[in-house]
């Protein structure tokens, strides 16, 4: 079960943890998402949102790792089709 996309938290409202809601910017589209399951999330964090719910914050250091790995890889000959 799959379709969850990353967005940046623009603002947060709601006091009760389970009713905490954020306005999240997905590439220019701003939509509300429940932050009930990410109590540690703050404005400017990126979150992964599925069916209107943030399931986790994006770990930006981990996100970079694959690109660091790719940068270190040797250039091999072009993949022949």
């Amino acid at each position, binding site marked *: *079960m*799959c379709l969850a*996309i990353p967005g940046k938290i623009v603002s947060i409202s709601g006091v009760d943890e*389970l009713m905490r809601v954020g306005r999240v910017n997905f*590439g220019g589209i701003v939509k509300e998402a*429940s932050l009930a399951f990410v109590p540690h999330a703050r404005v400017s964090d990126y979150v992964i949102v599925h*069916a*209107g719910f943030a*399931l986790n914050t994006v770990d930006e250091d981990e996100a970079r790792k694959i690109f660091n790995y790719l940068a270190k890889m040797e250039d*091999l000959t072009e993949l022949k089709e």
Partner: protein
Amino acid sequence: MKFLDEYRDARAAQKLAREIHRITTRSWKIMEVCGGQTHAIVKFGIDELLPSQIELIHGPGCPVCVTPLEIIDKALKIAALPNVIFTSFGDMLRVPGSSADLLSIKAQGHDVRIVYSPLDAVKIALQNPSKQVVFFGVGFETTAPATALAIFRASQLGLTNFSMLISHVLVPPAIETLMSSPDCRVQAFLAAGHVCTVMGFEEYFPLAARFHVPIVVTGFEPLDILHGILMTVTQLESGRAEVENQYARAVRRQGNRPAQELIHKVFKVVPRKWRGLGEIAQSGLGLSDAYAHFDAEIRFGVATHVVREPKECIAGTILQGLKRPAECPAFGKLCTPEHPLGATMVSSEGACAAYYRYRPFAAKPEVVA
């Protein structure tokens, strides 16, 4: 979109593919569990980039596909009742039951609405106190926190006009069932990334050890899938069988604790029938006793009945990775996305639907105008 578009970079994909080629010395069969991964593999042609020794087998990770016909028929019965507003994710609307689908029920004038979030269904219940609002709760563990919070909220609000028809399924029991089958050829798994965002990946360690299969938690973009395959093949080539996390930017080992707590509060583990696979013990979620009064099956008294699948449909063998869509005699002829016979053609993520849409096959019929 940040954290999405950069994982579709062509040069990076080619680099990962080249590395996979470099390290592959033998044939390997890898199953990707999640329908979203199947969709990405076929849509982006990821398997075209792989060496021919690597076979990707498409697993049963499509909750829409594995929802039993009986439950869809129950949904149709409830949706056709007067005074009911039936709400669902868009995915389920075109899934045919024994004779109709939710879209045709809607066309007959019944109140069937697509919602983006289960909380929207709760809002609809608040706005329509004289109607019964039912939500079709389908999904893997990824969606369970959302449906759990909807039930919890409805309970807090004391709503008597909200209920849920539940068909949640759990991934690890399905993997165990597949691996226990004597016909199983799968040698490694790409675990479903977003399922693990919620549940973590502790449950996979005993499976990896017991069946000696690498299990790599993998994301959904092309670079994620290629990277996950690279990590998997690296393990296979060196005889290791460990659990690794490719999708570390979104998945922590312990998963999402607040989400798990709410799931355990609102739901309990129950046996579930998987379309194409049969009943698997302890493989689904149903409402816990404290919340059982929100169960739409009980509220509307929809009786269970036996439904026979079309005899031409071999979805079960496809979901287990034993056959490919093109090997089905009905593929592209009797069975198409417009009139699907079974589970795997029904949702755009099912293996048959994905292949029909994106792959040239000799079996593909002329395009119908």
